[in-house]
């Protein structure tokens, strides 16, 4: 699909509510989806899955906003936001996650950097408190 256009403003690809797609939708710019897609959705920037949208397949982008329905895995290198109307049936991976009240999420969630930090904390044993080397004498 589209190459990144210098100085491009607004979305790179918009899939209307009356459109059905099968295959890989890939764009270097933003993608806005109102329609149905069976296949992969990939962007280096923002993917917005609107209320009327239905995606059956993996979604991968920098920022992913979900107000529609997705059956498939979602990977967001930046932020992943599931809005109140969002429905996800599949695994999600993001370092910055927001799930609004009313959203449906059935699946596994991994936060790669969060996990790493937690593991690091577990691995390094707690340093014993240093004792004062000087005695204070009253």
């Amino acid at each position, binding site marked *: *699909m*589209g*190459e990144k*256009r210098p100085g491009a403003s607004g*979305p*790179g*690809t*918009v*899939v*209307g*509510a*009356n*459109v*059905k*797609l*099968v*295959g*890989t*939708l*890939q*764009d270097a710019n933003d993608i806005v989806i*109102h*329609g149905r897609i069976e*296949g992969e959705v990939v962007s280096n920037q923002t993917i917005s899955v*609107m209320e*009327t949208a239905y995606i059956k397949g993996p979604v991968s982008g920098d920022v992913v906003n979900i107000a529609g329905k997705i059956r498939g895995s979602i990977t967001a290198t930046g932020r992943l936001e599931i809005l109140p109307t969002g429905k996800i049936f599949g695994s999600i991976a993001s370092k910055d996650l927001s799930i609004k009240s009313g959203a449906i999420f059935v699946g596994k969630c991994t936060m790669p950097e969060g996990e790493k930090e937690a593991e690091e904390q577990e691995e390094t044993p707690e340093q014993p408190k240093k004792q004062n080397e000087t005695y204070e004498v009253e």
Partner: protein
Amino acid sequence: MEPPKGKLIYRQEKIKDILGDIGIAGETVIPSAARTIEELTQLGVMKGYSTIVAVGGESLINKIINILATQKISKEAVLGIIPNDFESLIARKINVGDLRSACNALKFRRLETIDICQIEPNKFFITEAMVENPKNRQIYFSLDTMAGSAQTNQIIIKPGLNIYMHDKALEGNAFSRFVGWLLSRKEKDIFSSFFQTKKVRFESENANLPIKVSGEIIAKTPATFYNRPRMLKIIVARDKMKQS
């Protein structure tokens, strides 16, 4: 649509006068029953002219581009344009507002290399093509890595292969639109689509829909469109260069 013959001759004389005033000389040819635009363009190319100036509407300009592109000389030859209609897309593309500014653009000869769109096998255009139908139709399309279908009544294809699809019928009926207007309520457009690709094919169900460029039918569906990047050198007005 070309103007009547009398007006055409008057206009031609006027253009010759302006070009003479600013010091541009060249051979002038007019298409006739004996010699078509395509034949005249070929003749110009054979004579070794490096610049061909099209005076007319987009239909005429596209016929010249067809010859330049199919003979694979579009990268060497330069196309100057004096449009009939200065409100047209082509006039906006080269940024000329009247006859004098169009002639002046030829004098200053600022070149811009532009993308052109090809409809298989050999139709080319530089502004936009439109597939329009009064009623909604199921359109099937295939892009680089995907295939799809849409209920649409209007498809616009622009060079760079920017594709706009719109479905007017789903915006609601006249009454709901009137109520929306009355309440100053602007509905969010969720029925328009936009894609950018290198190749696209459109097919329609049970009918061959006309593909129009400047109101003239140049092809019918099923049709495959390609983007031909940086394929043609055109002369544009100076302001156009400042803008870009």
